[in-house]
């Protein structure tokens, strides 16, 4: 076969690399600001756009989708072309992928700052942006599969399998979890409610970790690690097992985010079992990576690329051991809702994703600029500062998590909670939060050094936009299955069929887990006293979602005595049936709020208390880290949306009476006046039309219905 000459597109790689660096710095600086707000809550500056609840999604989305996302595209666009011995399928598609993705990021940051959010973690984007994400994602997949089809190699290398699995699974997850009915251009209600919403969301959330933060990076590991070490992967056979076992198992593990919740037990147990089994393929992959370096350890000492890779793969091993441990009910009872989760997430994000991204950048930027890395010394400095940064970040959080969990669970000899005031358990952690902020700052210093080093490398080099290569064309007839060729061997050469098979492998778990929760009524026993929210409460709830209160407050009391003592009744599946979206939260920086409105309950507060608290939490509790929400007092509630909201809820099956949308605002105003009058009797003058009134109405509703049912607490045994 005659040799063909073609050119690798390095320009698209360069663009994604620049975007990675840019968003990496921004995303992490926002993270640092969040960390500092735990020490100085005044750093929210008293304005809506910079409060914790709004910028926390900016941080998580920027790091996951902007930094890691662009890093992933950088590595995929570089390695895919070389592994296929072909230029990208279509330059225009590459450009649309790049600019579309950056546009999404900008839209995301702005919309979160303005409080446009679905209130579902890592899926906060509102529906118009969600559609844009889907379109750009398909452009990426089309370009990728097109490239694979026109490749000049027979076999499709295992790294590409990981890329394919990333593409199909993220597409399915994103679409399934984002299904919603719009109320307006920037507001929608998810089609799922309560427990079902929670299951779909965490099936998505967990698999975003699996298929956005893990599989593409494993693909990058399988390409760049052998490249940098200049030796083939330790065991190609192991990589095949790694791939299939990983994608098959991962998809089941989502419910481990919902242990001890109102999710039916069988689903929780499935999540636990599959999470624990995940250790096997994950560690198989880690061992495969590390053993590739056997006999090359002397080079690890000198080559910053390899150094970053070793820590990345080790961090992968650490977090994939820790994750399954946290999925067991014993550990989860302690770790859940604490900073343990945050520590775990950052070992993964900073160690695995961050370090591998920088390894890839240090590898490919000098190459596409035809020069050497400007300074190995600075790269080493980056390496050490960032490694220490991760340790400084994670260790205090683990310490804090155990401290806080113990304080939550501790009883006095007389059987009372030892620390009944939740805030005490937060104040105790402030030194740990300070240490964490220092660790994060060190990591950022490392990144800034990295950016500086790479800029000087770029300045010293000469960019090679189109890199010439040559290889023989792939003969057409070879698409057919040859005699004596196994099905999988054949499949490994057929990208479309392969994609479908990977899709089936991931769908099995999703379907078995999610479908029964819809079809089998007994999974969510109804509670007769649970009624839909009044229009005012619904509006208040939407403000709760807008402000991201769920980033600090859970609405999910676990069946432990320590929690029912502190908050009240433990959570029942039937109480959330009208919650579009669910707001269970995943981290308690403040107390659980799901029993806040129970009159005579452990957490009950009068309207005036809520008013004063929202206006300035530090005035009531000097040590509080809750942000001020004083604009709720001055801003008017937008009641033009009430009727539409009621209609959308009716479409979703919420049983408001026929024609209720027309009188909803009358109902709303009547309830609002009641609250305003009550506040007035306490000496607080505020118009019934203000947002704060709706917020108070919502907070006072929380938990009422369940308590009206007079549920017994007898089932509570565990501490």
């Amino acid at each position, binding site marked *: 076969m005659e040799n063909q000459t073609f050119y690798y597109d390095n320009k698209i790689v360069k663009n994604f690399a620049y975007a990675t660096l840019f968003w990496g710095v921004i995303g992490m600086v926002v993270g640092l600001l969040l960390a500092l707000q735990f020490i100085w809550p005044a750093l929210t500056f008293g304005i809506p756009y910079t409060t914790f609840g709004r910028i926390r999604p900016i941080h998580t989305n920027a790091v996951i989708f902007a930094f890691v996302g662009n890093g992933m595209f950088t590595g995929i666009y570089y390695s895919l072309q070389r592994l296929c011995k072909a230029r990208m399928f279509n330059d225009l598609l590459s450009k649309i992928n790049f600019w579309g993705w950056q546009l999404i990021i900008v839209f995301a940051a702005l919309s979160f700052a303005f409080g446009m959010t679905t209130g579902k973690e890592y899926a906060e984007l509102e529906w118009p942006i969600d559609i844009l994400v889907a379109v750009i994602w398909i452009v990426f997949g089309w370009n990728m599969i097109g490239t694979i089809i026109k490749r000049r190699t027979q076999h499709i290398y295992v790294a590409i399998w990981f890329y394919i699995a990333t593409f199909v699974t993220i597409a399915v997850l994103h679409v399934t979890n984002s299904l919603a009915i719009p109320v307006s251009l920037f507001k929608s209600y998810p089609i799922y409610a309560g427990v079902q919403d929670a299951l779909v969301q965490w099936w998505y959330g967990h698999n975003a970790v699996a298929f956005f933060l893990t599989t593409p990076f494993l693909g990058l590991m399988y390409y760049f690690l052998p490249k940098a070490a200049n030796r083939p992967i330790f065991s190609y056979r192991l990589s095949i097992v790694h791939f299939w076992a990983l994608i098959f198992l991962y998809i089941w593990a989502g419910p481990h985010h919902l242990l001890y919740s109102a999710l039916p037990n*069988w689903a929780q147990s499935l999540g636990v079992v599959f999470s624990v089994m995940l250790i096997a393929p994950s560690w198989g992959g880690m061992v495969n990576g590390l053993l590739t370096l056997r006999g090359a350890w002397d080079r690890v000492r000198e080559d910053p690329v390899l150094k970053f890779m070793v820590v990345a793969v080790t961090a992968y091993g650490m977090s994939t051991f820790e994750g399954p441990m946290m999925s067991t009910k014993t550990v989860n009872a302690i770790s859940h809702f604490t900073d343990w989760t945050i520590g775990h997430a950052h070992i993964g994000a900073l160690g695995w994703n961050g370090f591998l991204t920088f390894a890839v950048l240090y590898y490919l930027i000098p*190459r596409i600029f035809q020069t050497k890395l400007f300074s190995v010394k600075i790269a080493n400095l980056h390496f050490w500062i960032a490694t220490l940064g991760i340790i400084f970040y994670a260790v205090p959080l683990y310490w804090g998590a155990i401290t806080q969990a113990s304080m939550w669970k501790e009883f006095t000899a007389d059987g009372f909670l030892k620390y009944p005031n939740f805030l005490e358990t937060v104040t105790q952690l402030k030194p740990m939060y300070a240490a964490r902020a220092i660790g994060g700052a060190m990591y950022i210093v490392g990144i800034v050094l990295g950016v500086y080093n790479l800029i000087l490398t770029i300045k010293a080099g000469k960019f*090679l936009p189109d*890199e010439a290569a040559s290889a023989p064309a792939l003969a057409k007839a070879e698409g057919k299955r040859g005699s004596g060729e196994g099905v999988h061997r054949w499949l490994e050469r057929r990208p479309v069929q392969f994609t479908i098979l990977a899709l089936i492998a991931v769908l099995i778990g999703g379907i078995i887990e999610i479908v029964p929760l819809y079809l089998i009524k007994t999974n969510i026993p109804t509670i007769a006293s649970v009624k839909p929210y009044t229009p005012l409460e619904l509006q208040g709830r939407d403000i709760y979602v807008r402000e991201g209160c769920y980033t600090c407050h859970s609405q999910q009391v676990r069946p432990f005595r320590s929690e029912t003592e502190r908050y009240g009744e433990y959570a029942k599946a039937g109480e959330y049936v009208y919650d579009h979206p669910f707001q269970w939260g995943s981290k308690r920086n403040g107390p659980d709020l799901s029993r806040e409105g129970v009159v005579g309950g452990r957490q009950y507060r009068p309207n005036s208390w809520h008013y004063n608290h929202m206006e300035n939490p530090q005035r009531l509790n000097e040590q509080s880290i809750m942000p001020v929400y004083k604009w709720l007092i001055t801003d008017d509630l937008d009641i033009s949306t009430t009727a539409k909201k009621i209609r959308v809820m009716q479409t979703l099956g919420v049983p408001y009476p026929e024609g209720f949308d027309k009188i909803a605002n009358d109902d709303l105003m009547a309830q609002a006046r009641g609250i305003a009058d009550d506040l007035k009797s306490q000496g607080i003058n505020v118009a019934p039309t203000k947002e704060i009134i709706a917020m108070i109405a919502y907070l006072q509703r929380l938990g009422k219905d369940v308590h009206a049912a007079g549920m017994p607490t007898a089932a509570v045994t565990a501490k």
Partner: protein
Amino acid sequence: MLRDVFNSIGGFESYGLISMIIFVAFFAMLILHTISLKKKDVETFGRMPLDDSSKESDKNQDS
């Protein structure tokens, strides 16, 4: 015996059993497949990243 193990996990019921069977079957097939691969092929596949048909960008590097 297996059923006892699952029951003791609590609420696991048949879903758990079905999913485990699916996984074990899948895994067994996978292992058989990887064992049956020819050694020569596996080596060629493993070397794929090292041969990208262009040395242009590598020429300034030490390794």
